[in-house]
Structures are given as C-alpha cells and as structure tokens.
C-alpha cells in the first residue's frame, strides 16, 4: 500500500468530481476529521468515476449516532469502534473508576454495548453493507496485575468482543477489518496519540488513521478478484529443472530444502478448490511434464490444472493459448514465474496481466508473495458456479468436437438435452446474480454496475423483478449464468440490466430468456436500457439478429417469434 499523507488526501478530495454520487457514512466517536478525509480520498481513488462523499455520524457517542442513522440513500457504512465506545471507562477521557469492584460492571457494559451494536448493524445492513474496525487501540492499564501477566478481566473483555466479532464475520453484509492486516500496516505501538486524545479527542496518530481508512476503503470498494493463475513449473511449482533432474529429481518438501514449492502447490490446490482457474505454461517436453504431474505426492491435483501448455515456444504464446482456452481477458489473470525475463516477455505482450516473480531461494519473501496472491484472488465465499467453472471448461473441447461432428447447428443443439432453469424473484440476497451483473462485460446490455445499496434499493421498488437462469446439458452444469433486471409496466417489460456469462454463449440461452420473459410476465413488448460499451459486441449481435434498433431498443412479441430460431431447451421454473 502506498499510504496517503493528509495533504495528499486533501488534494484528492478537492479535485473536481464527476460521475455518480455515492454517499458513505463514517461512524466514529472520536474527533474524526482526519479519518473522514482519508477515507473519502481512498474511496475516491478506488471508485474512479464516482463522486464519493463521506459523511459522519454525530461526534461523541458511537452507538447513539448509529442508532439515529438512516441508511436510505447511502452506498455503504464504515464503523470504527474502540474499547471506550463499548464502555467509557475503557478510555482516557472519562474518569469513571478502574477499581476492581467495577470490573464486573465494565464487562457487563461491553457485552450490552456489543449487543446494541449488533442490533443496530443488523438493521442497517438490510439496506447497505457495513465495514467495521473493532478496537485498534490497546486496553487502558485497568487490570491490577503485572503487565506481563494477562488478567481474567482482559481475557473476558476480549471474549465478549470476539463473540461479537464472530457474528460480524459470519454476516455477509458486514465486512470485518482484518486485525492482522492492520498490524502489518500499522505497528500496534505506533498507533495511540495520548496527548492528542486528551487535548482534542483524536486518539489516532496520522499513519494509523491512514491505515484504518485504507483498509476500510478496501472493504467498501473491493477489487474484483482475479479468475485465473498461470504458473511456470521449474523452480516455481517445484524445485529443479525437470529436463535435467528428471521426474523424481524435482522437489517440493523440507527434505529437498524446497518447502516453499510444496507450500505454493498447497496454495494453488486451495485456490483451485475455490474456483480459481489454474494453468501451466512451461518450457518443457510435454510428455515429461505429464509424467511429472502424475506424481502422487504432488500437492496440486492434476485434475485441478487446465490447460497444461508445454513446449519450446515463447511463454507469451503459451499464455495466449491458455487465455483463449479459458475465454477470459488478461486483466483477470496472474502469471507466476521464477524468471524475470519470462515475466517481462509476457508483460510486454499482455500489459494488463499481473506478473509476479516466484521468490526462488528467497524464503524471506515467500510470505509477502503469498500475501499478494491472497490480495489478488481473495473472495468472500465459494459458490457452486466457482466449482463448476473448471469442469465446464474441460468439456469445451469435447463439446466443440461434437459440434463439428453434427450435420447442423440445429441437430447439435437438440442433441444436448439442455435444461434451462429460470427463477423470478426480488430477493436481494442472491450474491451470484449480483456478482454476475458486476463482472460480466461481453454479453452486457449497458455495462451498468451496481453498488450493493443500489441493488437492494432497485429490487425493493414495486413492480421490479430479478430473473436468473441456470443451465445444464449432457456435458454438465454451467450453474447460474444469466441475470435480467427490470420492471413490468402494463403490457411492457422494461429491462434495465441483462448479462450472460461468456461460458454460456452459442446455446440460444438469450433467445430462450426473451421468450420466457414474454410468456412469464405476459407482456407484448420488451424495452431495453441499452448502451454501447467497448466490449458488449455479443449483445449488439443479438440486437442485430432481432433487428432491434440500438436507439429505440425494444421488440414486440410478434416480431420476436417471427425471427426467433428453434429453441430446444427444456424449461424449468423455480419458485421464489
């Protein structure tokens, strides 16, 4: 992280703004001007194209300020909660008694305040997501024993806090700031400004306020996780040059003084199980590579790697083949190699790919390397679709061959035995639908991205609908692959967002989706909020196929049926 100085933050927030306004609330009982300035600046940096505004709840009492707050019109909230917010006797600005006789009462105060905070956050997160930092400053020296010894009071306070923290971490709309990451960026002994706390009620040193703000901004405006990782083999996935030492000569364990390679394999296995695509690009003999990858002690399962591209061409050629096979863009991929030269060659051809040097024989850098990978690929949850992705990609060549063997496209599509499952709902908890809308580029009606609060607000409007489609055929399941958002008005359905995963192209799912909308909503016309984007060519192709004007952007049922090719899916409908 490049930490912002306060002056830099002021300069950022004073630049001319444009784009959609996004209001965030910062709840913090301390005198929080610097936190507010820094948070707004970090959010502006992360939300380019948005007019971010950070407002604060009233100064002095975190809980009361939050309880009075109405989330309507906000995009998200940030809460910074210190010990003194849970009981004022755990701060330095109130003299309320540190006598042992008050300990039980202090603990009770913390438990009660945690419960109030939980109830308040539960109410707020029905509308907007909330990022929360739990006490970042140390407990005051309230315990009576030697500081070398942990007191029962301190542990009891931590236990109460951790119970609350566990609830936060389990709530998908509460983003709990990672204490270890904060420790990494802001050393615990350099955080507290005792003098400023007493003089002005500003307990944070500036660097600490900057670290908190930075992490909160990452929680509220996260980067989209990368989708694929391409790795080299020699001196990366394992220690040694396969062509020189042979299949049994490469190592990845303590015995071979190559533990970091084993840990790397273990990490990739974990990524693969969470839906990250893992491929190999190696300058090696293909047969030898396959033999090495079949070693039973490898911690990365062979089936979790696809494709394996080995040979003697340039690494960038191998990367290009892998990207084509995955059908994803370079900006969603990281390439790992131990050779700076190979990294530079790939970077030159694919400027958007994240190239990362494997820390060969520099174990001290290994932890940073893993940390960076976690930043690239971290995601809040694993969905079924993530697990299905690799299986479906593996089937693509088989499917392609089957298409070539069929006499016509029609006969091929009919032979698939495809099942489309539609669900119409206004349920805002469908994270997969939200994710698809916000990451799909090619088959995308207009490129509009939703903040969580906007998503919730839109689907709460009377008449609005959310249509999702899941697909399966004889080659396997694709999971939930299409999302349509809109509202019905009389005999017209207005579609404001429509996306479909590129994995679902060429199956006439979009055609079936339109027919389902006409029939299910019982409308005679569908209008579209269409905008051309740099990458939504597939959507424009559909418009062209149905002779839909990009300006007028609507179609009636008669025209649709006249132009629609044969659709052979079996359609299922799921209750909301």
């Amino acid at each position, binding site marked *: 992280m490049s930490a912002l100085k*306060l*002056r830099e933050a002021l300069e950022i927030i004073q630049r001319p703004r444009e784009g959609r306004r996004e209001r965030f609330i910062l709840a913090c009982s301390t005198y929080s*001007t610097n936190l507010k300035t820094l948070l707004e600046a970090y959010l502006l940096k992360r939300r380019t194209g948005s007019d971010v505004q950070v407002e604060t709840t009233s100064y002095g009492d975190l809980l009361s300020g939050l309880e009075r707050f109405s989330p309507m019109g906000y995009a998200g909230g940030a809460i910074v909660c210190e010990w003194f917010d849970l009981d004022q006797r755990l701060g330095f600005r109130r003299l309320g008694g540190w006598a042992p006789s008050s300990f039980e009462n202090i603990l009770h105060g913390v438990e009660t305040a945690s419960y109030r905070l939980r109830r308040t956050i539960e109410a707020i997160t029905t509308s907007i997501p909330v990022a929360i930092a739990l006490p970042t400053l140390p407990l005051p020296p309230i315990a009576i024993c030697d500081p070398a010894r942990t007191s029962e009071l301190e542990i009891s306070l931590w236990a109460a806090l951790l119970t609350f923290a566990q609830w936060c971490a389990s709530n998908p709309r509460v983003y709990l700031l990672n204490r270890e990451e904060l420790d990494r960026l802001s050393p615990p002994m350099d955080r507290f400004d005792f003098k*400023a706390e007493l003089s002005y009620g500003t307990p944070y040193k500036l660097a600490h306020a900057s670290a908190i703000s930075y992490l909160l901004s990452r929680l509220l405006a996260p980067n989209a996780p990368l989708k694929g990782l391409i790795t080299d083999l020699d001196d990366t996935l394992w220690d040694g040059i396969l062509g020189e030492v042979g299949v049994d000569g490469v190592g990845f364990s303590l015995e071979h003084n190559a533990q970091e390679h084993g840990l790397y394999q273990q990490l990739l296995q974990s990524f693969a199980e969470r839906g990250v695509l893992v491929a190999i690009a190696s300058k090696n003999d293909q047969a030898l590579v396959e033999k090495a990858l079949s070693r039973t002690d490898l911690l990365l399962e062979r089936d979790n790697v696809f494709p394996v591209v080995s040979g003697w061409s340039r690494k960038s050629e191998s990367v290009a083949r892998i990207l084509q096979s995955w059908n994803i863009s370079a900006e969603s991929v990281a390439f790992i190699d131990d050779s700076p030269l190979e990294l530079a060659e790939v970077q030159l051809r694919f400027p958007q790919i994240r190239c990362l040097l494997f820390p060969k024989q520099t174990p001290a850098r290994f932890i940073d390397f893993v940390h960076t990978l976690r930043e690239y690929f971290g995601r809040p949850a694993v969905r079924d679709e993530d697990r299905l992705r690799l299986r479906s990609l593996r089937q693509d060549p088989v499917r392609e061959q089957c298409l070539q063997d069929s006499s016509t496209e029609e006969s091929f599509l009919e032979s698939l035995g495809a099942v489309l499952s539609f669900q119409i709902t206004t349920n805002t908890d469908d994270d997969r639908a939200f994710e698809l809308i916000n990451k799909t580029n090619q088959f995308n009606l207009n490129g509009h991205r939703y903040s969580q609060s906007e998503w919730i607000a839109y689907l709460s409007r009377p008449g609005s609908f959310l249509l999702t489609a899941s697909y399966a055929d004889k080659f396997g399941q694709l999971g939930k692959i299409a999302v349509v958002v809109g509202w019905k008005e009389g005999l017209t359905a207005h579609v404001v967002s429509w996306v479909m995963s590129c994995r679902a192209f060429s199956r006439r799912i979009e055609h079936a989706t339109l027919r389902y909308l006409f029939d299910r909503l019982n409308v005679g016309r569908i209008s579209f909020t269409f905008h051309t984007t740099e990458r939504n060519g597939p959507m424009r192709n559909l418009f062209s196929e149905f002779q839909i004007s990009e300006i007028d952007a609507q179609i009636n049922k008669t025209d649709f049926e006249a132009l629609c090719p044969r659709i052979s899916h079996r359609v299922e409908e799921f209750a909301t």
Partner: protein
Amino acid sequence: MNDLPSRLTEIFLALFPDLRESDIATANRNTVSAWDSVASVTLMTLVEEEFEVELDFDDAGEWASFDDVRAALEKKISS
C-alpha cells in the same frame, strides 16, 4: 529552511482551497472563514506531517495567521 514558506503555502492551499495563492501570506483567522477550530487541528497535523516536527497543541491553538505558523515553525526547527 529556505523552502519553508513555499511548503507552508502548499499546506494552506490544500487546507483552504478557496484561497488564492497571492493571499496566503496575509491570511489570518479573520479573513479566512473556513479557519475554525477543526481547521486549526488539521493545520497543525498537516504541519507536523510535512515538517516532521511535534508541535504543542496549546501553541498551535493560538495560531491566528500564516505569519504565526511560519514563526512558530521557524522557532521549532531552529531549536
């Protein structure tokens, strides 16, 4: 030390964006409406950050003009 006035000017420009650069040398609490108690605390933080000095809150609270800040800073740096 020679660049102190220009660095201090940059700070004032960041904190009070409505001020013209030519007015900064004569800026004071009476002429700058945004210079309230909150701005005073922020100004002190900005000065500490820029010049890597630790200032006294009581002294900083009494700053009433650009010249006051400049004089306090020169004294602090030369001490």
